[in-house]
């Protein structure tokens, strides 16, 4: 199977190269209109089909890798290093991304899959798709070249073939790890598609803004995958790493967050281009940067440039990535300079107080946040270069710098929807702000009353202060969004005499993008409330003898046993803890520590009891070697489940936004038109 896999990867590279080569020549011929013997359109179509064939070849290679994992083919070095016989089947799939070579194959396969769908649907706009397909092929050529020449996944082990493999990193042996990396990769890889469309549209001087509409669902799906990937990663870190938190501002976490920020900015600012033809250059550069940031993210994970807990796949291929990033940047700049006249647009704002200017500030803040994170991630390198010593830029830095920016962004989330497009006078919409302001200030008062105070023991407490501000703004934003739904539904209800629920449904159906977006914003608000809860985290750590008690918050944990166990894959130690509340036994939890046999790596299994108000989070820290008794650390983390609930809203909102809007039965269809019907354009989803 190794031979087949290697062969399939070579075929895929050849096909991608042909796709790029033939596609470029065909598009060049079509653009210049030179008379040639072969029809350029036929040439372009063979290029397209080469792309589809390339997808099949990469699929074959990925299949060969999976097949080898399942058949324990330890003659392949990669399989030997990332799997073992006792590994449960679901985690054998995880071998595809637990190491460098495998994750590159996954990357190429996902890119192939996106390209496959794109090339099958090319009739939407043949020329634009031909450009986008050729650009995708160029990216694919790079990845396949790296796979074939720098990180071959099918290289064979030298010497005797071992009986069993080294096993999968135990950190990755967790259900979410079967979903999180593919999601994140789908998000990373997916941004190649809007990038290809944007670059292609610029190269061909695409007339109008329709390409944005064509790309929209691609961008939203990609954004959805990236969002889910990031949050699954947070949940994984929370449930597996056992330090009681979910986000450590690790360089690799940052690397996934940066393209998310620029991608989010892009999704907002393209609306200005669609509606008013503004900000064309800005949008093009936003998507270029997003793509470059996804590449940078991959390089950071792989290259060992910055130290990270994620750096389990370091190697020399980082140089390939630097060169590729340089080429991409050069192509972007060159194309932009060559075609910049095409992006000239009339920039006008009718009013300072309008949806447009709120989008401008939204972009500013998202980009500023992205800069802060990039700066913090790269500052250690800069510091080493300038003053010769490496420094750490850790959570305290980001908490102090990024949190205020995030709160400002949250504030804009509430203000934006209240402002209509184009001109308006503040006077007219002032009353729309009354109810949200009341909600905001009442929350402040309630918080102060129940003890969320920005000072503690006479000292300023930044955590509490930010939590207070976050709660207050969240309440204001939530009310603002809710009032938007009610106002819109009220209009529809008055006109169509439907009840409020039916009217709300119709409201969402007729502009899925806007109201789906608002649902996403509600999700963001819920997530922020959950994040703010971290200001009130508590923890207790103690060695527990039998029947010893550990009080934390409203709970008391009592140790009723500790024991050991083992199976084929790992040995484990765990404690049995009864949890009491108000003197009554509520439930039992069992924090655990495992040592995996194949890798000899230890791993904590956290016991989590989650209710809407808080999580009880208990870690088996270890065993005291002198007494043989377990050391238990218990956390009480308020509002954590709100984060995961908010994500559900964000996902749901994105699905709503992906549904095409219901378009009005236009008068042209109801009233006999003066023109024959075919000349009327089909009115697609609008915004």
């Amino acid at each position, binding site marked *: 199977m190794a031979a087949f896999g290697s062969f399939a990867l070579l075929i895929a590279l050849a096909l991608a190269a042909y796709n790029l080569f033939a596609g470029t020549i065909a598009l060049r011929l079509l653009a210049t209109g030179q008379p040639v013997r072969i029809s350029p359109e036929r040439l372009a179509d063979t290029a397209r089909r080469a792309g589809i064939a390339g997808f099949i070849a990469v699929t074959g290679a990925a299949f060969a890798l999976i097949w080898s994992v399942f058949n324990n083919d330890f003659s392949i070095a990669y399989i030997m290093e990332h799997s073992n016989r006792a590994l449960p089947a679901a985690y054998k799939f995880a071998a595809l991304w637990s190491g460098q070579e495998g994750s590159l194959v996954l990357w190429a396969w996902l890119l192939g899959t996106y390209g496959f769908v794109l090339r099958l649907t090319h009739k939407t706009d043949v020329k634009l798709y031909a450009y986008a397909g050729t650009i995708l092929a160029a990216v694919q050529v790079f990845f396949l070249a790296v796979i074939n020449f720098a990180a071959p996944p099918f290289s064979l082990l030298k010497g005797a073939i071992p009986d069993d493999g080294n096993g999968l990193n135990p950190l990755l042996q967790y259900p979410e790890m079967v979903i999180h990396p593919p999601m994140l990769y789908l998000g990373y890889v997916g941004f190649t598609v809007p990038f290809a469309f944007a670059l292609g549209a610029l190269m061909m001087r695409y007339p109008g803004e329709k390409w944005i509409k064509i790309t929209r669902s691609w961008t939203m799906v990609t954004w959805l995958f990236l969002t889910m990937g990031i949050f699954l990663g947070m949940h994984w870190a929370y449930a597996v790493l056992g*330090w*009681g938190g979910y986000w*450590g501002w690790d360089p690799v976490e940052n690397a996934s967050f940066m393209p998310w920020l620029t991608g989010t900015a892009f999704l907002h600012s393209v609306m200005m281009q669609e509606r008013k033809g503004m900000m064309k250059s800005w949008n093009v550069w936003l998507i270029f940067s997003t793509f470059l940031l996804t590449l940078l993210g991959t390089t950071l994970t792989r290259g060992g440039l910055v*130290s*990270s*807990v994620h750096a389990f796949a370091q190697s020399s291929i980082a140089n390939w990535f630097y060169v590729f990033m340089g080429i991409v940047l050069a192509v972007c700049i060159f194309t932009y300079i060559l075609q910049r006249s095409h992006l000239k647009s009339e*920039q*006008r*704002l*009718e*009013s*300072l107080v309008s949806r447009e*200017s709120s989008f*401008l*500030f939204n972009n*500013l803040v998202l980009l*500023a946040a992205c*800069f*802060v994170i990039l*700066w*913090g991630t790269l*500052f*250690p390198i800069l*510091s080493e270069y300038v*003053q010769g*010593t*490496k*420094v*750490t*830029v*850790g*959570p*305290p*830095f980001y908490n*102090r*710098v990024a949190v205020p920016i995030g709160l400002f962004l949250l504030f804009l989330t509430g203000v934006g929807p209240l402002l209509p497009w184009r*001109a308006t006078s503040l006077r007219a919409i002032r009353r729309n702000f009354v109810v949200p302001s009341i909600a905001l*200030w009442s929350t*402040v008062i309630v918080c*102060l009353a129940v003890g969320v105070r*920005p*000072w503690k*023991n*006479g*000292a*300023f407490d930044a955590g509490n202060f930010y939590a207070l501000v976050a709660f207050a703004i969240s309440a204001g934003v939530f009310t603002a969004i809710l009032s938007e739904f009610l106002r819109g539904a009220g209009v*529809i209800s008055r*006109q169509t005499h439907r009840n409020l629920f039916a009217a709300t449904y119709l409201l969402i159906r007729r502009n899925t993008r806007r109201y789906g977006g608002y649902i996403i914003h509600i999700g963001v608000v819920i997530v922020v409330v959950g994040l703010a809860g971290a200001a009130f985290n508590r923890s207790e750590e103690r060695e527990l003898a039998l029947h010893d008690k550990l009080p934390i918050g409203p709970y008391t944990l009592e140790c009723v046993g500790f024991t050991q166990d083992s199976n084929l894959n790992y040995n484990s130690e765990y404690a049995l803890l009864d949890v009491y509340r108000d003197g009554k036994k509520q439930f039992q939890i069992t924090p655990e*520590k495992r040592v995996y046999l194949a890798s000899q790596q*230890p*791993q904590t299994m956290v016991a989590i009891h989650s209710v809407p108000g808080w999580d009880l989070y208990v*870690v088996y*820290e270890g065993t005291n070697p002198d007494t043989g008794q377990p050391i238990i*650390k218990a956390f009480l983390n308020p509002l954590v489940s709100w984060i995961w609930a908010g994500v559900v809203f964000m996902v749901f909102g994105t699905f709503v936004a992906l549904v095409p809007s219901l378009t*009005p*039965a*236009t*008068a*042209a269809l*109801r009233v006999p038109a003066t023109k024959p019907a075919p000349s009327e354009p089909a009115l697609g989803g609008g915004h």
Partner: protein
Amino acid sequence: MRTASRFTFWIKGAQALALAVAMCFSMGASNASSRFNDLSHRLMCTCGCAQLLGECNHVGCTESGRERNELSAAIASGATDQQILASFAAKYGATALAAPTTHGFDLVAWVAPFAVFAAALLGTILLVRRWSIGKTQAVAQAPDPAMDALREKIRRETGAGNDGGFSA
């Protein structure tokens, strides 16, 4: 009455804000355990796990336990926060501090984000002002009757005056 309550409302808000600002300058931890908590979140574990000292609890860490004891001892000895942080930085290198210091080149780390943000904010405001064409001039009513017919058609088709085509 309403104005009066609104007034006290703002006063309250302003008071809370003033207090918050005042508190900023009176920072100082009160007791040993909260100082330990605070300082252990300003230091990194040096085993290479890239976690905060106060949060590093991965199994088999060779450093964090000892360093935490060291921190407790330093707090008990009565050293100031600055002295403790400086001694850790001297002993384990600058990477033991969880965030850059605020002097020398390290200050750039803190200043740059705010400087960039301020510059971008200023730039955006200037841009908005430049793009803003203000109140649009009164639109001259098109005298062309053909245009009127078109306008009539547009109003019909975009549902001005009715429900926009959704009543059916």
